């Protein structure tokens, strides 16, 4: 096993000429690098905690924001991130098995397990790409109210709640309508000439665009209040309240047009009033994803070296231990990101 301590006297240990820690220079420096990198991530997560703690507006709830699965409709709260966590843990296990094979000087074992680790890394990166894409595109978009509106909306358990939303309150669209509305807004410029009957070239634009309803004429059947946030009222959790029919129309008409937002970017996001929410998501998961990416690259290089028999000739597989430390560290960071971003 790595670093099996052998009994050496203290004077002997610190008298020079050998490492008092019984590990090689390279592994020592990898540990020091990981400590400093852990401080970076610790600083980022602490900053996240401070901002979230001091935030006046309700913070988005992880299980309400992250509840989609690829290719499936419906609500699967946290399932996708749980899968990503599982993939990363398993790739950490295959890495430690590669280290174990290295201690037996088993070249075939090292190549096999390191190969699986690289595969796991690619799976994780792909999952994160999908997660980011989903986060950026959003699930329907939202807008702020220009004036206070009193509506009644249905809760999860079927009860109806009468409420007055203040000006500036967020209301969200359902994903199908939201995407259609986003599409209509993007193509507004093409529809406008159609309204006049003919476009600049004299063609009858109506004939081509007859399927498109202009954004200004679209009215949603239902809107969602507290889609991503949670408000406690009289011992009840108010989230994902659905306003339909006349109530939805009232909310729609109170829309402040320049506040409409779909998904998230570096300036605004549909999930929270606080832009820090999206910024921290992008920065922390992005910084972690970059670590995974460089980890995969390093693993591939060392994998190729192992295949070519470099370590066999060297007589030991310590390089697997060193890149293993880095790879486990990436897993370690994700464990914390998972807890503080998604669970709490």
């Amino acid at each position, binding site marked *: *096993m*790595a*670093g*099996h*301590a052998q009994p050496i006297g203290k004077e002997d240990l610190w008298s020079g*000429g*050998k*490492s008092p*820690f*019984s*590990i*090689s*220079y*390279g*592994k020592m420096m990898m*540990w020091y690098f990981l*400590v400093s990198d852990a*401080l970076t991530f*610790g*600083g980022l997560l*602490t*900053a996240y*905690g*401070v901002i979230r*703690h*001091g935030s*006046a507006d309700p913070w988005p709830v*992880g299980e309400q924001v992250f509840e989609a699965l690829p290719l499936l409709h419906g609500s699967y*709260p*946290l399932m996708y991130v*749980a899968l990503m*966590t*599982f993939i990363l*843990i398993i790739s*950490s*296990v295959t890495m*430690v*098995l590669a*280290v*174990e094979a290295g*201690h*037996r*000087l088993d070249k075939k074992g090292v190549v096999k397990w390191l190969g699986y680790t690289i595969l796991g890394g690619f799976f994780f990166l792909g999952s994160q790409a999908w997660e980011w894409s989903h986060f950026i595109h959003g699930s329907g978009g939202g807008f702020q109210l220009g004036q206070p509106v009193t509506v009644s909306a249905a809760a999860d358990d079927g009860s109806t709640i009468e409420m007055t939303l203040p000006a500036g309150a967020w209301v969200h669209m359902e994903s199908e309508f939201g995407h259609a509305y986003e599409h209509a807004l993007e193509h507004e410029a093409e529809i406008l000439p159609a309204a006049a009957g003919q476009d600049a070239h004299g063609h009858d634009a109506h004939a081509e665009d007859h399927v498109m309803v202009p954004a200004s004429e679209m009215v949603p059947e239902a809107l969602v209040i507290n889609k991503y946030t949670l408000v*406690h009222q009289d011992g009840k*959790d108010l989230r994902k309240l659905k306003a339909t029919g006349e109530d939805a129309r009232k909310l729609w008409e109170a829309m402040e047009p320049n506040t409409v937002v779909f998904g998230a970017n570096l300036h605004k996001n549909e999930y929270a009033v606080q832009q820090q929410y999206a910024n921290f998501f992008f920065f922390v998961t992005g910084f972690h994803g970059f670590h995974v990416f460089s980890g995969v690259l390093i693993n591939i290089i060392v994998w190729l070296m192992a295949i070519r028999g470099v370590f066999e000739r060297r007589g*030991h597989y310590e390089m697997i*231990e060193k890149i*293993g*430390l880095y790879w*486990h*560290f990436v*897993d*370690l960071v994700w*464990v*914390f990101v*998972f*807890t503080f971003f*998604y*669970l*709490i």
Partner: protein
Amino acid sequence: MERDDLIVNDSYSINARHNEEDGRKIRKKLYAVTLLLTAITLVEVFMGVFFKRNGTFTWETIKLGFIVLTLVKAAYIVLVFMHLGDERRNLKYVILLPYALFIMYLIFIGLYEGLSVQELNNSFR
């Protein structure tokens, strides 16, 4: 090529070897830790999905539980997967103590400043 950054010594992990028999034992331990980490993750997800986030004592306790479970997972990853548990005691302390000290200070100062900012925000509201 000779490397001058290594001093070969029998006590170095670089020469840590074990046979097939030891390997079987080590792998058994690794699989047990894998099962444990997976189980903890599943428990966390189900707790997150099923319990109401209503600011009551139950939810606050669960939040604390998440942090404790996360630290347990972290300990297993560092001590077993990263083999820090098998290293010399002085190395363990060199890695863990400075980090624990700095991060506790960071969290303390973060919470302290965060509360102060919150107070300021509230008084100018």
